[in-house]
């Protein structure tokens, strides 16, 4: 009798403790949960719903199930846009990773006031809205306002036109690298500062050179930071919108309305008032992002780190 009582009391108390844990836990998470349901789950569900209807002049709105997706995945405007952002990511991401990694490694070695100052200056573009960043570079590229013509004339050359359809790829590449390399550099730099310096000491005693320390110790230990940056850069680049949208006016003809999937979705929804197809493209783009991120995560998980 006493034995059962003694064992019953703690379980009862434990249960009430977990009940309270449950309640308090949900009280903390609840407010965000409501926002999450209202502004993420609901819009996704609604996009899926919208994308299953087609609106036409005659016959009104009709249910087409996956008809819009069949249309999107055979629509050259959408497919070319997807191909462009994938191609752009494949060039951009390695480039800006290399730039930001190199700067972070330099700043990890040179510890002077000058280096600290340059770290801040290189980071500065992150504080600039992408719209303004694109506008600034648009000015620098343009014939009317830019220095390129002057500089190239001094060498007797004609200036490259980064706003022409053949070079706009590189023009955009430069803008995005300029905008984000400093931010990524700060993340990598902070991760470098977190590495235990005794590792370098030990490597040096073993006769490792500065280069070997960079390649064999620093870069492998930076893998988590680099992976994080890669995933975010990938998600961001596939949604490319602001820079091409702003440059569209300055780069006459080089950037059509279906240049990237997001621009195409914007045009469909807001210029043509075709919300059903706009939502379809948004949803299809989200699917492309998920697939790309998972392919990437799967590929890197296998390798484990960047060293062979």
């Amino acid at each position, binding site marked *: 009798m006493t034995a059962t009582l003694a064992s019953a009391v703690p379980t009862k108390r434990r249960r009430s403790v977990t009940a309270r844990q449950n309640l308090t836990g949900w009280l903390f998470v609840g407010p965000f949960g409501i926002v999450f349901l209202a502004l*993420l789950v609901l819009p*996704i569900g609604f996009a899926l719903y919208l994308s299953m209807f087609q609106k036409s002049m005659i016959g009104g709105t009709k249910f087409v199930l996956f008809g819009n997706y069949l249309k999107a995945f055979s629509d050259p405007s959408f497919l070319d846009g997807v191909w462009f952002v994938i191609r752009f990511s494949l060039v951009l991401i390695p480039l800006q990773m290399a730039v930001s990694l190199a700067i972070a490694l330099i700043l990890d070695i040179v510890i002077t006031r*000058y280096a600290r100052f340059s770290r801040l*200056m290189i980071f500065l573009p992150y504080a600039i809205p992408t719209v303004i960043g694109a506008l600034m570079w648009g000015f620098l590229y343009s014939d009317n306002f830019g220095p390129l013509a002057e500089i190239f004339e001094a060498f007797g050359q004609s200036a490259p036109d980064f706003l022409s359809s053949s070079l706009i790829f590189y023009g955009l590449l430069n803008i995005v690298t300029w905008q984000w390399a400093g931010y990524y550099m700060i993340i990598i730099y902070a991760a470098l500062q977190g590495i235990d310096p005794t590792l370098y000491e030990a490597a040096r005693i073993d006769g490792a050179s500065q280069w070997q320390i960079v390649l064999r110790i620093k870069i492998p230990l930076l893998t988590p930071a680099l992976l994080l940056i890669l995933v975010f850069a990938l998600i961001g680049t596939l949604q490319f919108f602001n820079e091409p949208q702003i440059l569209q*006016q300055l780069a006459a003809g080089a950037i059509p309305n279906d240049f990237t999937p997001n621009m195409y979705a914007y045009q469909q929804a807001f210029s043509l008032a075709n919300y059903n197809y706009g939502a379809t493209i948004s949803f299809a783009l989200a699917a492309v992002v998920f697939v790309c991120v998972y392919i990437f995560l799967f590929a890197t998980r296998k390798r484990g780190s960047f060293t062979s």
Partner: protein
Amino acid sequence: MSVTPIERTRAGRSSRRGIERRSMPRKPGRVPLNIVLGLLMLYFLIPFWWLIVNSSKSSAGLFGGGSSLWFAGDINYVQNFIDLFTYGGGIYARWLANSALYALVGGIGATVLAVLAGYGLAKYSFAGRRFSFAILLGAVMVPTTALVIPTFVLFAQVGWTNTIWAVIFPTLLNPFGVYLMNVYARDAVPDELLDAARVDGAGEFRSFFQVALPLLRPAIVTVLLLSVVASWNNYFLPLVMLSDNRLFPVTVGIGLWQSTASTYGAAGSQSLWSIIVLGSLVSVIPLIIAFLTLQRYWRGGLAIGSLK
């Protein structure tokens, strides 16, 4: 009297330098690295220099064919400043105020939600926690632009489009902020400390406010800064949601000016270009000041997610 502290710091500094030197016996060539840093700074700062120089020019100076990287004969800051803040009935000041409102209300709201949810997920083992966390990680990968079109259609049905809430509500959703807070809270707030507070009779919320919050400060500042910057820089969301130009944030406003100026060609809208240039410069100053003054808070914080 006054000599001692100076000497002490000097001694401290030289001994620190001694440690540095000891841990780095083979210094690589610093001069080339410093030159590289100088060139990098040049690249990252050139657009700013262009803005500073060209916002001093009158329209005639802007199109006058002089060097675009140096000041023209007349310095026109004051006149341009007056033009900027009086054009269109002083709409520019309103745009700046709107940007500040959206960034602060949206940013602070998102941070409060992220702190609560991140802490709750980290410190309470409530039913459904694991599931919530898995959903959260998935949500970090959802491209935010994919939500804009369905959210617009939803808001249109309840009459929220073209109001300030159409921009502020979606800003509250910041899954990455929750993730950062969760990662940080797990280590920064020891369970033993919370247990001690409970034993001393503090309720769950009191121990959150008085024990946990002070420990979370670096992460809170970081999440706040990231949310405010994301909101200040946002373009796609307000572009879609707002049609009344008195509600525009500065990014959408300048984008509007730019497209107006481009549409009418260089000849018809010369005066608009000079205020676009100065308007771009003025719009980047608040965030640059925020970043420079809050340096010691964000420098370490930006690495939170990347160390694991």
